[in-house]
């Protein structure tokens, strides 16, 4: 078994065991920490799958910001998960969905297949060729106006090119989504005064010891 396959199997095993631990634990603080570890392992695996931009973002966002937000909420809310019965309906629904998804993957191309439709599509060639520097004769008029030129931008990082130039409209929409989320959090939490949870629900404190004679 080659080194790559070994790393693959180890990472996947760690991911699966972390996910199952998150499902089983009741202590919310431990679950928050495990979520951060899960995101970091996911980022490691994304790096292993040749996607450094995504690994970068997932590590910073998942293992960084998301964990901080969950911890801050736990600090404010201060609760522990109450034990709940295992629900058979949920289990059946999950197994059914899982079965249907596995049946769907039987049609998918094999992992790393160079003949996969996503790879042989002509648009992938256009995206990768956009990293070529514009040739000298294109000075003075817009790149790509010659037929057969493809569309050259000259930036080595094709992911940034696709994100900001080919699909700039989608990125604008997504920036608007982040903006709206910021507004939403500001508006929801502006009126929060946060008093302690209802005192009648608290356990009565033990009476103080009666006296030295007891």
């Amino acid at each position: 078994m080659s080194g790559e396959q070994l790393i693959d199997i180890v990472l996947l095993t760690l991911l699966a065991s972390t996910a199952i631990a998150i499902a089983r634990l009741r202590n919310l603080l431990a679950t928050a920490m495990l979520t951060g570890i899960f995101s970091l392992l996911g980022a490691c695996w994304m790096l292993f799958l040749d996607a450094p931009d995504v690994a970068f973002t997932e590590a910073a966002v998942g293992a960084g910001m998301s964990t901080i937000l969950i911890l801050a909420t736990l600090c404010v809310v201060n609760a522990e998960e109450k034990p709940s019965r295992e629900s058979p309906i949920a289990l059946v629904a999950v197994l059914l969905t899982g079965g249907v998804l596995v049946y769907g993957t039987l049609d998918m191309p094999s992992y790393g297949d160079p003949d996969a439709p996503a790879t042989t599509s002509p648009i992938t060639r256009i995206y990768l060729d956009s990293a070529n520097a514009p040739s000298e004769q294109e000075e003075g008029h817009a790149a790509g106006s010659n037929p057969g030129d493809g569309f050259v931008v000259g930036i080595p990082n094709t992911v940034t090119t696709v994100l900001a130039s080919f699909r700039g409209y989608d990125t604008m929409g997504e920036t608007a989504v982040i903006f709206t989320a910021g507004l939403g959090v500001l508006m929801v939490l502006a009126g929060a005064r946060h008093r302690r949870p209802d005192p009648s629900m608290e356990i009565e404190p033990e009476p103080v010891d009666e006296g030295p004679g007891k």
Partner: protein
Amino acid sequence: MTDVLGLFNYWIVIVLMMTGFYIVIARHNLIKKLIGLSVFQVSVFLLYITIGVIEGGTAPIVAEGYAVYSNPLPSVLILTAIVVGVATIAVGLALVVRIQEEYGTIEEDEIQAQDHKA
């Protein structure tokens, strides 16, 4: 046999996805549900990135000496999805704080019981 090994990655990702899905629908605590949603999101990202991998390829940053590059398009889609995911979690957690203030609890069944009584 290579077929099964080739699909093995997808199946593990589906197991992760179903674990996250189970946490969302079966647990009553609101914060636990949001954590399950986060697990589900990460596994969806892993599924997409697995689609773009090419054997013997490298990251889609054009450089001297490399001929085969992985597909850049799944990376772009998932970059957007990751940040939108954290935005969703942030708004969800803010709502949990307000729910705790109003109802005094963050267990879903107790909240529904209070709603039914009202």
